[in-house]
């Protein structure tokens, strides 16, 4: 006879029910957004909301592309977020490596102070940041936004990568150097691949910070040609007539790159390559 542990069965049921409930609560707005983006306007504005309808079309997506500058905003967002991500990875990797491997005065203070910078909400630093950017001639430029997102992402990225670098035995780097590698090659060929989960986490964080940002883009960008998606979407919302279907289509298109990026890189997040490197 099979002995069933009912307490465990109930706790499992409760766990899955709770998780399912959270998934539904989080997922429903997304589902509604997708459904709304493919429905005719009369269904969207119907006083009795319809969850299910057999009439779907791509009109809102076509309008989004033909009647607005959405494709320009999309391109701007992709290039700015992509560049900020690459720049952050480069700078954070070098900085975290330096803080981990070299001894210099104030090293621990810098390391400890990294997260301190997050005590200040972005809204607090936006005015001084604007003044700095203006004096550097970077207001109303993509480069200004790239610098803004890099600046904002760097402390966390450095802190995260520092923890990864600290966990990588220095013997591996020294082995690479005695094998004939320069320090730069040892870092590129041995250390960075081992810190890949950290690099991926940093890239996700930076990409999402840059992709979702409204504040910096709103303050630093005036030209329509340089606007990013959040600003463009805001302008759509503030138009004389709010086209909900088109807005939801925009929302879907905005979500896809972040989702694809996450799906592409999340498998690299798994740690465990470190096993077997050195005697543990």
């Amino acid at each position, binding site marked *: 006879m099979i002995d069933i542990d009912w307490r465990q069965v109930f706790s499992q049921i409760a766990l899955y029910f709770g998780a399912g409930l959270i998934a539904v609560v989080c997922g429903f707005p997304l589902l509604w957004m997708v459904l709304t983006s493919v429905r005719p306007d009369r269904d969207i504005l119907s006083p009795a909301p319809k969850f299910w309808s057999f009439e779907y079309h791509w009109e809102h997506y076509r309008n989004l592309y033909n009647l607005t500058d959405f494709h320009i905003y999309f391109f701007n967002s992709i290039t700015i977020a992509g560049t900020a991500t690459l720049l952050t990875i480069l700078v954070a990797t070098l900085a975290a490596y330096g803080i981990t491997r070299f001894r210099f005065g104030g090293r621990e203070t810098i390391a400890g102070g990294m997260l301190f910078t997050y005590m200040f909400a972005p809204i607090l630093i936006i005015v001084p940041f604007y003044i700095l950017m203006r004096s550097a001639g970077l207001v109303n430029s993509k480069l200004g936004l790239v610098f803004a997102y890099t600046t904002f992402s760097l402390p966390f990225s450095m802190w995260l990568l520092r923890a990864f670098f600290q966990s990588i035995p220095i*013997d591996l780097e020294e*082995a690479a*150097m005695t094998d*004939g*590698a320069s320090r730069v090659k040892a870092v590129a060929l041995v250390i960075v*691949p081992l810190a890949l989960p950290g690099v991926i986490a940093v890239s996700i964080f930076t990409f999402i910070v840059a992709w979702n940002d409204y504040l910096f883009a709103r303050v630093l960008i005036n030209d329509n040609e340089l606007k990013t998606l959040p600003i463009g979407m805001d302008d759509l919302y503030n138009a004389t007539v709010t086209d909900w279907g088109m807005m939801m289509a925009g929302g879907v298109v905005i979500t896809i790159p972040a989702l694809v990026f996450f799906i592409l890189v999340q498998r690299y997040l798994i740690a465990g390559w470190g096993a*077997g*490197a050195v*005697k543990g």
Partner: protein
Amino acid sequence: MAAIELRNLSKHFGDVPAVRGIDLAIEDGEFIVLVGPSGCGKTTTLRMIAGLESVSSGSISFDEEEVNRLPPRGRDIAMVFQSYALYPHMTVFANMAFGLRLSGVERAQIRERVRAAAELLNISELLRRRPRELSGGQRQRVAMGRAIVRQPRAFLFDEPLSNLDANLRAQMRVEIKRLHSQLRTTVVYVTHDQVEAMTLADRIVVMRDGVIVQSGPPEEVYRRPVDRFVAGFIGAPKMNFLPARLVAENGALSLQVGEDGQAEIRLPSSDALAGKIGEEVEIGLRPEHLAMQTSGEGIEPGRSFPFPVEVVEPLGAETLVFTTISGAEVVARCDPGLHPRPGDRFTAVVDTAQLHLIDPENGRVLAR
């Protein structure tokens, strides 16, 4: 292959000296073992030779060319680390080929050299695996393979066997020795294990507190230690140290062993000891130089002392017996055929030709 010379080599970490002005000439193809307790400066010396640590003062030369300022990659050395330091994201093949790829060796030649080294080390079947899929001994072999394929001027080993169990360590010792006899490449090997030092070295360099205390072939360091530290560090079980007083009667020298002078050991006359007559000295005597006898009959006087057995350690081929004389623990090797037991009263016969007299003030060996 390279001859390596260290001249007045020093290393300080801040105000703390790690290596203090050592001089050492390592011949081409020689197997040198740096041995000493933790913190003696042996690993720091090795790391300076590798270029992983900067030199505070003095110089390091490879074939009379100073390499102080050369980075590790410019020295053409290969190092085997205590932790193995295999690249975990690469296969065994890629680990071994890493150095060759960096130096631009052709693919076909890389394959050939890796396969040859793998065959030499019996790891051919492991080439597709990753380090995490290997046992400790296999990882150690891969680490050695990675060093061998590069055909460097010198091999540097930093306590490579200390993470292995006793059986594997003994096996790897033989393999390292065999490899050296085949390759005849200069080896600098660091260990704190005096057995490794004795079995592997062409020449042992004993270090303490950042200086070289003694350097010489294993047999010489074992038989003619310069001081109490070397005498006690090299050899297992350790050399026995007994307090004694040097006395002279009618021109004949003898040692009164123990604080109460419970035994007397006669010595041949020696000019070196003339100034020490009447003073306290320390006797250094290896366990194999004390022969156990069940009775004192037939032993010429002045060569023995009573040995009441306190502890017995049977090791199979031999048995170690322990006693205490004037507060000092004394160990002797004993024929298992005597079937020693705690409480037995043996007579220990001293091989006076192998006896070391040590100055208790400075630890120097006065005579032997």
